[in-house]
């Protein structure tokens, strides 16, 4: 998977020729944007040519999304200008951006879930496309053919898989005549085969002369796909890597990008694991577990699992194979329809959150914002949230405000949470910092079993490492940790054993020492290729 093998010489020559004939299709020049005291963007200049895929890399908060929002008309910059084919343009609203041929595919998508694909494509369409009856429908079919899209125009978007929704978004942008396509973290919701499909689509668009901007924090993908990479750090352009470096040795290119992203400090690998004796006490024993998903079908179908004290057990798998249901069942948030869940010998299946917590389960949800935190409440209040229902120390009536603040300060310091203070509403923090707060909340209770779903989703490399290190340390202290993640690299870094979850069962369980990443990858997708996407709409 080195960049040279995935990009043919012919493609490179073709895009070079286009580039020479036609310099910048769109240029952001000297863009500045501040939010209060934070400089999200500071004098950023980036130019994108026709038929070029530009990777925009950077850790969380580096300004990637802000820059995209400026180009897409969602955010008005404080300084600088946007030029299209050398002429300055005003992009005050998303409508302006669309009219200028700038299409955006947002990370969490901008489709109306209750409407059909065609209705979504019609949304906000103006000009000749709107005046001609059936024009949108014909264009959509045409674009669909070009991209090899498999989604019927009458399908309701809420029933589509995330991969399909993304293809709808891309098709819709092209229907509206996008010459520039901005994609924010497009691979974060996709399975490996879908990622390959997306890459093929983007290469096709490049061949048609579309300028593609790919925002990502996944290095490997950027290096495989992009003609050029711009790295942002703390709102400034930290560096620019062109084809000569990208097409060279991939480890060299990778190191260069990491250096630029983190200012040369690099990212150290998490500490190695200590072996767990095979006869260690089972902290979690799950037998014959059956759990229904939101749709009513069984999402976990007869799962057996044992996690030993002192061990990190990783559950790998493509999203939608029962991960959420498994985590919910162990955390007591979802009653299984069959099977047993014993934590340190105490049966908790179907007994609710309180019973699970009492038995020693700590749970960090994969849904940080919706389920894990109350956005408007402060960091201190969110840290105390799980004690409100189940006692804790002190008065049963009054909140122990001083103690809450003290504990919040300790958590902020211990986990290097970037927050102005304990009183800051958690909704103002970045995803990575919210995750650290949630983790701190669980670790403070020192649970004998910690369940963590998607611990590093959307986190930059450094924060991800901090989180993984904390999980590993928890296990090394003699507790059990169950990590459910679609990021195989995370599991390979910290897990003692890895189970592959396919269609609600563990397809295989392997010790990390004799793990074969490719084999796990194949297992992950093997049981899923033909299965319908079971993610709730």
């Amino acid at each position, binding site marked *: 998977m080195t960049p040279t093998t995935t990009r043919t010489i012919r493609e490179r020559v073709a895009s070079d020729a286009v580039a020479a004939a036609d310099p910048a299709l769109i240029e952001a020049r000297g863009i500045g944007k501040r939010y209060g005291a934070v400089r999200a963007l500071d004098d950023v200049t980036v130019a994108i040519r026709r038929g070029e895929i530009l990777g925009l890399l950077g850790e969380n908060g580096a300004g990637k999304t802000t820059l995209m*929002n400026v180009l*897409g008309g*969602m*955010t008005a910059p404080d300084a600088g200008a946007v030029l299209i084919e050398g002429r300055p343009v005003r992009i005050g*609203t*998303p*409508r302006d951006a*669309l*009219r200028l041929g700038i299409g*955006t595919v*947002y990370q969490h*998508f*901008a*489709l*109306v*879930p*209750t*409407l059909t694909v065609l*209705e*979504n494509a*019609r*949304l*906000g*369409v*103006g000009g000749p496309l*709107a005046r001609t009856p059936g024009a949108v429908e014909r264009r959509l079919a045409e674009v669909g053919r070009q991209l090899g899209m498999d989604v019927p125009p009458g399908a309701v978007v809420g029933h589509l898989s995330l991969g399909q929704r993304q293809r709808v978004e891309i098709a*819709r942008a092209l229907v509206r005549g996008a010459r520039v396509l901005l994609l924010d973290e497009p691979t974060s919701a996709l399975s490996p085969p879908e990622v390959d499909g997306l890459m093929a689509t983007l290469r096709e668009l490049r061949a048609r002369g579309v300028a593609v901007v790919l925002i990502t924090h996944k290095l490997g993908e950027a290096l495989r796909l992009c003609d050029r990479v711009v790295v942002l750090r703390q709102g400034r352009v930290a560096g620019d890597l062109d084809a000569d470096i990208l097409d060279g040795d991939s480890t060299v290119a990778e190191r260069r990008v990491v250096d630029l992203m983190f200012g040369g400090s690099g990212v150290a690998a998490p500490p190695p694991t200590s072996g767990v004796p095979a006869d260690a006490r089972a902290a979690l024993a799950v037998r014959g577990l059956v759990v229904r998903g939101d749709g009513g079908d069984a999402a976990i179908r007869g799962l057996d699992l044992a996690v030993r004290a002192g061990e990190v057990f990783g559950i790998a798998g493509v999203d939608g194979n029962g991960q959420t249901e498994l985590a919910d069942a162990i955390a007591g948030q979802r009653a299984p329809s069959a099977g047993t869940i014993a934590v340190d010998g105490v049966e908790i299946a179907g007994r609710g959150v309180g019973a699970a917590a009492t038995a020693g389960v700590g749970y960090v949800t994969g849904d940080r914002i919706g389920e894990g935190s109350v956005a408007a409440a402060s960091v201190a209040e969110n840290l105390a949230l799980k004690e409100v229902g189940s006692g804790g120390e002190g008065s049963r009536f009054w909140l122990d405000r001083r103690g809450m603040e003290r504990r919040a300060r300790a958590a902020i310091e211990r986990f290097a949470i970037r927050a102005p203070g304990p009183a800051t509403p958690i909704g103002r923090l970045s995803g990575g910092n919210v995750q650290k707060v949630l983790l701190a909340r669980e670790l403070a209770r020192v649970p004998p079993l910690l369940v963590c779903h998607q611990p590093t989703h959307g986190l930059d490399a450094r924060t991800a490492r901090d989180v993984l290190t904390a999980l590993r340390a928890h296990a090394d202290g003699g507790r059990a940790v169950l990590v459910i993640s679609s990021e195989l690299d995370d599991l390979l870094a910290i897990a003692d054993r890895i189970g592959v979850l396919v269609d609600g069962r563990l397809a295989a369980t392997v010790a990390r020492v004799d793990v074969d990443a490719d084999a796990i990858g194949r297992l992950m997708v093997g049981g899923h290729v033909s299965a319908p996407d079971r993610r709730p709409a």
Partner: protein
Amino acid sequence: MTDLPVADFLSALLGSGLLLAVPLLLAALGEAFAERAGLLNLGIEGMMLGGAFAGFAVALETGRIAAGVAAGAALGVALGSGFGLLTIWLRVDQVLTGLAITILGSGLTGFLYRDLYGGQNRPLPTTAARLDLPVLTDVPVVGRALFGQPLLVYLAWAAVPIAALVLGRTRFGLAVRAVGEAPFAADAAGIGVAQTRFAAILIGGAAAGLGGAFLAVVDVRTFTDNMTLGQGFLALALTMLGRWRPWRILAGALLFGMLRSLETGLPILGMDVRPEFVGMLPYLGLLAALVVLARRAAMPAALGVPYERGRR
């Protein structure tokens, strides 16, 4: 009165039921637009009362029913634009704004009525024009009820397919549904979220004002304090019961109208029931229907949620 011919009785029952359903139908149709666009208008009651009073006053002064009806709709538009300005652009809480309009509408119309007209019962001298189709009105039972109603009744009925068509088949309707479900997606697609919502609340206001004016000018032909009897809130329930779809809303409104016509119908039959109990029936009926039918109603996802670009 027990020797009243059954056919005549049924005809009267049906006719008054259809008439009584109109204000509720109009208000709920308008609210369907507002809610589809993401605006929860708790001010319908106040807008209806405002429309009722304005309609009554203008009809009394000009002697023209049509002028009164137009005045009621105009006041509804004015109140709707007030609601829109406050909630969409100034981001005042929708619930608070709506309740304020309702309280204001109730208090102010009562005060003005007493102040201007001495609080005495002042019936309108004129009656609204009726459709009177010669042959059809002679059809037993349903003839007069269906073909001899005031013209505005037919306008209200016509509003049902029109509303369904606009919501389902037009670009504006699509925009309304989009801003109520996913305003961010609508914005990203180049739809003016604020403008679309504002247009929807103007429709809602106009419809509520029209409903109120109908009640005062066409049906009762006078104004009394709080004469809407909570129909504004009933319209809110009906909108949800009808799942924001005009035809279902029509069905609910007709059910309500029929139950209300029993209020006068049952005593005529000589049935010995307390009028308070019969008066409660339409509300009970709608409540029961809500419990049974609206439990699984999927509200517009962004109902009551203000939208600000760049803040999700």
